[in-house]
């Protein structure tokens, strides 16, 4: 677990972000930040707005108010592509693999913005090394993979862009306990190389085992921001919102 480093540069900074779907407002002013090299967890009950927050960050949803800054510069209204180029990679909820493409094609497209073929190959090798199961199934159509296999594929794909900030939405969803641990190992490993991570995870203990800080979200508002230790020592908060 990394120590909170107050001096580190703030990478991502959300202030009073309001966002939603059509007429429905899901976020009523969310403020949070992620600093260089940090792992931050975003916790909260079902429907609290965690995924919506992540979608707003990666540009899938445009906020209707509030500010969204990347290294100090506003990124409100930027297209997902532009945000990815800045170094934010989002592994979405529900996997979103391309069903009628092979596993290999799915992985390759994760490195869509790469120009160099050798670099693409290198990253592909790393991905297949991390997830040997995917290597076995390289030629299989992604739509026919099992649920967990698809989840691995989605994570592998998000890692292909080697981002500065990795945004993970429930990465362990549908993974076996063993596989989930392996994924968290991967998270730790890339974090050790200086990649910051913003993580949504239902299993609080897993989440807090990698995160240094956590925000707790309730119905579209941040109701707490704490270091992992103090949160683990706050059984009231844990049981009230997260079921520790």
């Amino acid at each position, binding site marked *: 677990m990394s120590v909170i480093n107050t001096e580190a540069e703030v990478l991502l900074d959300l202030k009073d972000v309001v966002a939603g779907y059509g007429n429905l407002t899901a976020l009523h002013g969310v403020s949070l930040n992620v600093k260089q090299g940090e792992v931050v967890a975003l916790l909260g009950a079902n429907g609290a707005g965690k995924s919506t927050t992540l979608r707003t960050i990666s540009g899938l949803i445009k906020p209707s108010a509030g500010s969204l800054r990347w290294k100090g510069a506003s990124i409100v209204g930027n297209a*997902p592509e532009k945000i990815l180029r800045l170094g934010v990679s989002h592994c979405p909820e529900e996997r979103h693999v391309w069903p*009628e493409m092979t596993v290999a094609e799915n992985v390759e*497209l994760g490195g*869509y913005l790469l120009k160099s073929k050798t670099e693409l190959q290198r990253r592909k090798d790393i991905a297949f090394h991390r997830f040997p199961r995917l290597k076995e199934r390289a030629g299989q159509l992604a739509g026919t993979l099992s649920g967990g296999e698809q989840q691995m594929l989605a994570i592998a794909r998000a890692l292909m862009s080697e981002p500065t900030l990795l945004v993970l939405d429930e990465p362990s969803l549908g993974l076996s306990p063993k596989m989930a641990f392996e994924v968290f190992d991967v998270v730790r490993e890339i974090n050790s190389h200086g990649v910051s991570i913003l993580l949504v995870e239902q299993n609080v203990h897993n989440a807090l085992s990698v995160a240094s800080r956590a925000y707790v979200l309730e119905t579209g508002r941040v109701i707490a921001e704490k270091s992992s230790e103090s949160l683990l020592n706050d059984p009231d908060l844990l049981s009230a919102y997260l079921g520790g």
Partner: protein
Amino acid sequence: MFDLFLQFVVNGLVNGTFYALSALGLTLIFGLMRLVNFAHGEFYMMGGLLGWVVTQKLAMDFFSGLLLVVAIMALFGWLLDRYVMVRVRDKGPEPGILLTIGLAIFLTNTALMIVGTAPQKVLAPVSSAPLFIGPIVITQVRLFAIAVSIVAIVGARLLIQKTKLGKAMRATFQDATAASLVGINTASIYASTFALGSALAATSGMLLGSIYVAQASIGGLISLKAFVVVILGGMGNFAGAVLGGLILGVAEALWGGYVQTGTVDMVGFALVILILFFRPYGLFSVRAERA
């Protein structure tokens, strides 16, 4: 007797190639993009009429004329997608169907108003004098058109299967959210596919306009046949579309040759029914859906 058969088959193959060519744009827009584009025939029609304008009115030669027409139609398709089609994206298939029906009606009748109802001729690039190959008769211009068709079809297939752009297209149409998350500019992918589809439709309209005629009200007929070809091939599969076109062409030729000419159009539709009966997803198609 055998010579006759051979000639029928060759006629069918030539015609089939033309079917495949005129369905190419639709293979992109309908087959891959999954937009039921009723205005496909109208794009074809625009290609033919523009071809007439550039070769006859502006007296350009066929090839520079073709380049100009392709550029115009690509721009047209691009703008159409960026400002119109984009508004019904993600709203299910029906708004797209209605929109393209409206568009087809608009284009046909506007063309009718502007250039009139008369059939027009696109200046052919090569001669249409008969050419005898053994017992078979064919014309130079047809051979030329076949060559162009093959280039266009193979080119389109390579583009979709092998290039990064092609992969980005497939990714976008299968899951646009995921595509935008890996950095694909989905809006521009949609627009370029639409532009490419329109340009291909127009190319076939101009090329075939030089062999047949170009006319404002030709669209509906072209659309019908093109839908048949795309479906026979199995949606978005270029090899399939080519085979679909060839099968259609040869079946029509043989039916017309040995059975009855008045009902050749029925052959295509009967074939659709028959093939889909045995292969519900067309001749070539992959299914990746699971419960």
